[in-house]
């Protein structure tokens, strides 16, 4: 690097010192960063305030009261439970399904490649619109899925509008949208694995279950980890699908973190509680994203190395 400093002999009029150049280039992006950090800090401040839009005169710092109240607040525990349940169920099912489909499509062939491209389409549909599509399909009076449910004896199956099946319905939509994400990452991972271990195993007549659990799975682990954490980070903050489908209802069946914060802010105008909820969610995602970034960097290094 030291030798490059002597090369500086600008031909054109641009005279920015070599040392300053990277800062100048990244400054605009940096400014946008700072613009976002300000509302972030504001949100943290709000979370320590008693602040209702309906009672602006009563606004004052109550320090940790919003957080302390959560301990005795059944609505908060419901939010935490539903969020974790939603994230847990969707990511587990999507991982199993995505891995299964990736294995089915592993061999490169025209048909397999075509199918893998087709399967990407749900992922490219806006989640809010995907929820709307499923809403049309589960409509009690004309929805095709309601009709199919009645064929197998489930008359008056109410999908997202019944508290007992609402979670199942939004999970189904989430699976429809996001399984392709895990599938495409794992498929890329599977296809990038070195072939020698598999050839050696085939030569030795090693059983295929053994190959899968002892060779494929361990070598695929970084991909599985990255895909899972990626999805977990998004799933715990799911808003679009749930809000578009049920707005958190019926009742408080699906008031996950972001939906609850949204409703708190715009319906009950309780800004303090809403901000405290978001700060807790942020803390959860921050921890997760630190683990994620470590894995992601390792995978990225590997991808760069192969390039």
């Amino acid at each position, binding site marked *: 690097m030291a030798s*490059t400093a002597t090369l500086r002999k600008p031909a054109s009029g641009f005279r920015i010192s070599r040392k300053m150049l*990277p800062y100048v280039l990244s400054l605009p992006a940096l400014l946008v960063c700072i613009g976002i950090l300000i*509302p972030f800090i504001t949100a943290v401040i709000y979370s320590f305030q008693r602040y209702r839009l309906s009672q602006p005169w009563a606004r004052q710092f109550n320090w940790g009261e919003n957080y302390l109240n959560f301990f005795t607040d059944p609505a908060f525990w419901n939010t935490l439970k539903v969020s974790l349940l939603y994230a847990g169920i969707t990511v587990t099912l999507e991982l199993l399904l995505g891995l299964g489909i990736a294995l089915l499509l592993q061999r490169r062939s025209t048909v397999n490649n075509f199918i893998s491209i087709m399967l990407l389409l749900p992922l490219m549909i806006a989640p809010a619109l995907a929820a709307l599509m499923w809403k049309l399909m589960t409509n009690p009076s004309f929805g095709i899925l309601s009709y199919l449910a009645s064929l197998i004896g489930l008359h008056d199956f109410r999908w997202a509008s019944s508290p007992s099946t609402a979670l199942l319905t939004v999970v189904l939509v989430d699976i429809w949208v996001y399984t392709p994400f895990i599938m495409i*990452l794992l498929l890329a991972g599977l296809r990038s694995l070195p072939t020698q271990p598999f050839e050696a195993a085939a030569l030795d007549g090693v059983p295929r279950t053994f190959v899968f659990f002892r060779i494929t799975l361990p070598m695929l682990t970084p991909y599985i980890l990255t895909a899972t954490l990626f999805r977990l980070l998004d799933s715990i903050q799911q*808003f679009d699908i749930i809000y578009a489908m049920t707005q958190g209802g019926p009742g408080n069946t699906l008031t996950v973190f972001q939906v609850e914060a949204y409703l708190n802010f715009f319906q009950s105008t309780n800004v303090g509680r809403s901000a405290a909820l978001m700060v807790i969610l942020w803390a959860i995602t921050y921890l997760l994203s630190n683990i994620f970034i470590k894995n992601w960097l390792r995978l990225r290094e590997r991808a760069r190395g192969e390039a």
Partner: protein
Amino acid sequence: METTSTLEKTLRLIALSLVVIFFMFPIFWIFLMSFQTNETILAIPPSVIFTPTLSNYAALITGKLTTAAGTLDIAFMRNLGNSIFLSVTSVALALVLGVPAAYAFARHKFKGSEDIAFTLLSFRFAPPLLVLLPLTQYFQWLGLSDTYFGLIWVYQLICLPLILWIVRGYFEDISADVEYAYRIAGHSWFATFRKIALPLAGPGIAAAGLLAFIFAWNNFVFALVLASADKQPVTVGALAFVTSSGIQYGQIASAIVLSVTPTLALALYAQRYLVEGLSLGAVKG
């Protein structure tokens, strides 16, 4: 090498068929519905045999909906226009801001460079409502609440991390020696950037731009919270349809079809880069 029995082949075929049906059926069904009138949609049992009609699309495109109760205005074309405008300008701005920054991060290890890059990456994973809710108030104070500008700025949260991290990877793939050679010949850094780095990273920049466009287009929550009625994109607009009276189911379906067609077309076009984009450059397709 492997012994694939007919049983296994059949099972694979069945499994794959089920997968394809599950993932393709909703798209197929909504597509069919968009060519139907309420009468055929409400018919029991549902049938795929009907006389297709373009009336739903005609109503959306003209913005006039004739019902028994009179004519109704629907602003769907405006939503579509908003989506196009917001996505295109957001991506353009993100490219202008992000590509030079990506170049700086790829070529110069300067003080704080990794911190800035990771802060930008962390925006991708922070809960959007955390900043959106205070932003509603800032927007009112700053007079941004009824502007495209405010939305485009917030859309940088989606577009900028994507562009920065993908394009950075492409710049890192270019050998620095090529650039040094060009600079030794007496060219400025800017000429080097413009004549060497940009063209070589061109396909990657284009792919990142397309992906950023798809994500901007598909965004829902930013516009739901911040956009006034006449600035709403299709994601928010189509959802409002469900509750508005007089709208027919077929029209909702055709609104969905019109809203998803651009992203699906772009995704098919850019599918080679999707894996890399979706994993922010961590996995190569």
